[in-house]
């Protein structure tokens, strides 16, 4: 038995040291008849090699490393009647859901509705964690899911109540990498991070530059009219993409420092404004070139274009799949809900074709991942100008080879935050 243990330990040691592969280890252990017994140990070691672990020991999800979130309680049973009376509380960013649609949901189910807002995902999580807000449903981003599940802030979903997910939403988001099997979420909006600019001010042909991201480092002519997103991840990622670094969830201090150096180099070149007001400043023409979210550009065209200004003055470029950040927001059921059935119906409501399209085109400009929405159709119907086709995503933009800013370890988060603080201090 001792020899047997020594053999097993040698295999595990070899696996840890990288002398043998996981497959070889499994084969050898199976031959020894202990493979299944040691599976948890093997998984831990494999995770140590392949993936970082986040809050509550949940592996950090990456597009090429899907994660099935653990269920901390069973979902509600199927076929229950929705709750009536009282107030149904929707927790969301401000101006991110059309109140008219929320009211219609309330009328449909005979409940009062209330939208409670947060300014940032940090604030959202903090208020839910401290029970400062008791919501029924909450908006959430994929990078905060592990936190919310580990902290039991959101409830598991029973898919029986959400048929619209499979019926209407892009197949690539039926079982997203951050929430395999859609155990906790349904997707809400999708967007890319790219470059927005005014055609009447910027002379360069940005999409045809050998490195379109380099426009920011060659924007002396637009000094004072250039903007970078005020977001610690997005700003540093901009600099990484400029250098062709696509591991945008890196925790390597050297990579982060290099990105910081590039970002700081922008200051004497174009003195960028660091803000997230491009949805307004680009249409108004007070900014010529801005690091930009696609949804803000579309929202700008829908809501902020001065009367008489042709939306064709605006352009947007996003990198091909795997070369530029994509992101999506989700809805989840808050653990504090007293109306779990109604909360499930909300998740279904939000991916209803009419509701989702109405919210996108008549309210916030952020695209829902619906099969019924295609760039070609939107242009043909005159809903968006042809030059902004690039701001509309397709199902193919998601998948294992896409890149998405995701959860970091606390140490990684601190590295990114400190680097960003140095940039915005102008030191």
């Amino acid at each position, binding site marked *: 038995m001792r020899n047997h243990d020594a053999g097993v330990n040698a295999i595990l040691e070899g696996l840890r040291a990288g002398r043998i592969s996981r497959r070889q280890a499994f084969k050898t252990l199976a031959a020894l008849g202990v493979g299944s017994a040691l599976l948890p140990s093997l998984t831990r070691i494999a995770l140590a090699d392949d993936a970082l672990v986040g809050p509550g020991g949940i592996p950090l999800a990456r597009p090429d490393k899907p994660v099935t979130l653990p269920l901390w309680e069973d979902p509600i049973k199927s076929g229950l009647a929705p709750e009536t009376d009282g107030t149904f509380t929707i927790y969301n960013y401000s101006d991110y859901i059309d109140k008219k649609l929320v009211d219609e949901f309330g009328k449909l189910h005979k409940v009062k509705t209330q939208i409670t807002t947060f300014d940032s995902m940090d604030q959202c*999580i903090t208020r839910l964690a401290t029970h400062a807000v008791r919501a029924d449903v909450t908006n959430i981003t994929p990078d905060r899911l592990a936190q919310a599940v580990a902290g039991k802030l959101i409830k598991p979903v029973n898919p029986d109540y959400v048929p619209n997910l499979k019926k209407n939403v892009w197949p690539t988001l039926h079982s997203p990498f951050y929430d395999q099997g859609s155990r906790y979420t349904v997707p809400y909006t999708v967007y890319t991070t790219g470059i927005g600019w005014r055609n009447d001010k910027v002379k360069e042909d940005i999409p045809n530059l050998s490195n379109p991201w380099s426009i920011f480092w060659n924007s002396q002519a637009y000094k004072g009219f250039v903007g970078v997103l005020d977001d*610690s991840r997005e700003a540093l990622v901009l600099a990484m993409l400029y250098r062709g670094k696509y591991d945008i969830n890196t925790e390597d201090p050297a990579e982060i420092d290099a990105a910081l150096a590039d970002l700081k180099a922008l200051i004497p070149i174009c003195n960028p404004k660091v803000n997230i007001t491009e949805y307004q400043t680009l249409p108004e023409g007070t900014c010529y070139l801005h690091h930009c979210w696609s949804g803000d550009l579309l929202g700008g065209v829908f809501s902020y274009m001065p009367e008489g200004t042709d939306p064709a003055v605006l352009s947007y470029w996003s990198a091909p799949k795997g070369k530029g950040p994509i992101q999506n927001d989700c809805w989840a059921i808050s653990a504090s809900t007293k109306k779990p059935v109604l909360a499930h119906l909300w998740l279904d409501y939000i991916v209803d074709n009419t509701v989702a399209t109405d919210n996108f085109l008549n309210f916030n400009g952020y695209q829902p991942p619906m099969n019924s929405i295609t760039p070609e159709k939107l242009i043909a119907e005159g809903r968006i100008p042809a030059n902004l086709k690039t701001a509309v995503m397709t199902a193919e933009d998601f998948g294992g080879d896409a890149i998405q800013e995701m959860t970091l370890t606390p140490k990684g988060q601190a590295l990114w935050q400190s680097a960003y603080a140095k940039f915005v201090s102008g030191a």
Partner: protein
Amino acid sequence: MREHSGIYPRGLWPAFALPGVVWLILLFLVPFYAVIGVAFGGVDPIFMIPMPAWNPLEWNFDSMIQTLRGFLPGGDYWAVFIRTTVYVGLALSICLLVGYPVAYYISRHTRRTKSVLLALLVLPFWVSYLMRMLAWVNLFAPSGYVNEFLAWSHIMPDPPDWLNGNPISVILALVYGYIPYLILPLLAALDRIDKSLLEAARDLGANPFSAFLHVTLPLSMTGILGASVIIALPMFGDYYTPNIISGSPTTSMLGNQIDLYFHGGPQPSIGASLTMILALFLAVLMTYYMYSVAKATREVRDE
């Protein structure tokens, strides 16, 4: 014989101070101790929210030491600290240059006119600080009224870009935002000056300028110091003025760094440490003010 031993019950006068003391404890001392707890505490491993350390024996000094290192020349906060100090120093000087004559002017009027002038002075308070700053954005935009006037009048045919990282705009916005807070206490100090002292100076042959220099100015010095402290303290922690007026890293102030670390992420203790260091720095100004007031009071009593 004690003053309160007469018709009023014992303890009545100290009781009047009670609401203020409770206010001070609840809204200053407790929150400030919370900041100390966060600075020397940790973060929740799941939610990354602050876990204050209330017991001094459990304090962790790592963040404070790291932050203090940042204030050394060449450190992470050195440049932003110097920038903040220069901006506040210049804004304060301009406030005094503009505000003192205004306060002096108002103090010289009769009660009725003074009331009207005071009402005009506090009129901007009816509009929120944020709205007043946003109004500046419209005024100083590249095609705003200021630039249109400068170009039209040929004072500056090619007007500068005021809102894109221009430190002058940030300093002027600070002056605009805080100057009423300087004038009001200054006015109170100038009002208290006994006019007969000025008459005595004139009787002794002093001309108006000399009377101002040797009587009014020294007697208003405590008011100048008090008013300066009142506006310098919030200016040091201001972050929305540079955000709205500039938004550029080249004009960011220490308050912006505090805001960043408190806004989210795994290092709220750095934000709390920055707040404490700023508070200690401002305590030096406050101590000097209190020392000056005490000294002036002592001198008056001794005369």
